[in-house]
């Protein structure tokens, strides 16, 4: 086996070898999936419908009849709107809590307590507050996204070097200068880590949240395919959920590589 260090620093050949292993991983994944359906691991009656080939055909069918767009757009909208609102709320809170030690002490127990509660537990309350529909789903997603954003921002703003603060003061920085030139940029890598975690967990919670009475979205469509006994479409939907999740995470990794400073 080639260890990580060697292949990272290696030649073009090593780079191609790395690439081929990624491709091989995808191929093996499909083989195992196919084997599972041929060995009837999904049950005697429906294993055929669960195979990658059936899912692929269903995917083409759903692309043609518009199901993919019809259910993906609302899901993405819910996740992005709730993420946007979570960022607006969580970053300022995180910076303040991270910077002021008293505020961190004050909020430590409530925050650690709240973040351990699955947002789905709030579902009845969300429905009482906002009714069944988009607002409730968005609220639940917001509730799950704020914690990684807040807690990582707190960490980032809290580990600002006192040396940087002293330097900024000798450069004539007031409170505003220290906030905008030191604390916020210093916390950006942690904010991005928080964002990556928030996107991951939001996307995971989206599916059950969309099972709570909305008329569209990927979570809704999972239940819909089940009710219509279209297990090939169900597998295709699961595939789409995984693919979009992977792409969202890749976008976050790109953001981190682009904007997170290194020491």
């Amino acid at each position, binding site marked *: 086996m080639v260890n990580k260090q060697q292949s990272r620093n290696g030649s073009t050949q090593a780079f191609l070898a790395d690439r081929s292993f990624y491709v091989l991983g995808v191929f093996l994944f499909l083989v195992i999936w196919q084997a599972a359906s041929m060995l009837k691991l999904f049950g005697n009656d429906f294993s055929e419908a669960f195979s990658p080939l059936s899912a692929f055909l269903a995917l083409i069918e759903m692309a043609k009849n518009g199901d993919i767009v019809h259910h993906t757009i609302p899901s993405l909208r819910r996740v992005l709107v709730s993420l946007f609102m979570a960022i607006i709320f969580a970053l300022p809170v995180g910076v303040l809590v991270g910077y002021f030690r008293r505020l961190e002490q004050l909020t430590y127990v409530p925050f650690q307590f709240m973040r351990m509660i699955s947002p789905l537990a709030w579902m009845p309350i969300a429905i009482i507050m906002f009714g069944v529909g988009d607002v409730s789903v968005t609220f639940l997603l917001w509730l799950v996204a704020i914690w990684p954003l807040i807690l990582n921002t707190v960490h980032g703003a809290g580990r600002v*070097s006192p*040396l*940087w603060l*002293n*330097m*900024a*003061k*000798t*450069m*004539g*920085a007031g409170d505003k*200068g220290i906030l905008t*030139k*030191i604390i916020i*940029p*210093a916390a*950006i890598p942690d904010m991005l880590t928080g964002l990556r975690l928030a996107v991951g967990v939001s996307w995971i919670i989206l599916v059950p949240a969309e099972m709570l009475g909305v008329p569209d979205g990927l979570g809704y469509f999972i239940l819909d395919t089940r009710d219509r006994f279209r297990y090939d479409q169900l597998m295709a939907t699961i595939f789409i959920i995984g693919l979009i999740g992977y792409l969202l995470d890749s976008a976050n990794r790109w953001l981190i590589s682009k904007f997170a*400073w*290194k*020491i």
Partner: protein
Amino acid sequence: MESNGRKQKALLELQNVSKVFKKDGDDVLVLRDVDLMVDEGEFICVLGPTGCGKSVTLQIVAGLLEQTRGSVILDGREEHGPGPHKGMVFQEYALLPWRSVVENVEIGLELKGIDRKERRAIALEQLATVGLAGTENQEVHEISVGMRQRVAIARALANKPKILLMDEPFEALDALTKEEMQIQILKVWEKTGTTIMFVTHDVDEAIFLSDRICVMDINPGRVKKILDNHLPRPRHECMSRTDKEFNDMRDEIIALYSSLKDEELDLII
């Protein structure tokens, strides 16, 4: 630049500056009645072992610490708090890792609200002053530690400070880089004419750089003696650290510490 010749105007004046720290509920006197005049354009070194309060003195001048008693007067005005008119160079550089070299130099100008074009021009000029022309777009983690400290010096100079305060700036450097940086700071001083107050516990460094040396003592931290340094300049051209005058000065300083026990004396000799 003249080798010495005390000019008439005192730029910086410390009057009876004392500092008391609270430690476990007790008052500890770390600095007692420091009186010091620094002339305009002068290079003064503050030399002493750990615990003599030399860094505390510098931080009081910088405004990062407040004295318990006494006053600091700069250019005729009593000083309170830090500001860009007092350029500070820290031992640990204090560069911001998310900014490029030139952006680090620009930070003080940014805080002053100077527009982008003008501050870039000033920053590039200061980088050239410290011998770093052409490195402006590099990242901080890509450059050597010696270069980092030069960036920090350029950053302080960019504010056109009345005085440059340097807190053991070359302590973390290896011997060769340290010597290179000593020559560099003398060149910067000669070029800019900036007054420099330089804290060190390296006897040779103080002799090599200074017009005068403020020798400090411990328990409590206080000024022991202020020595004039008449060695010819430019030092890197007409002096060697093994010259007789250099050795004499070194002996004179070490003799001042003859009452201290070995373990208390952590000067680099």
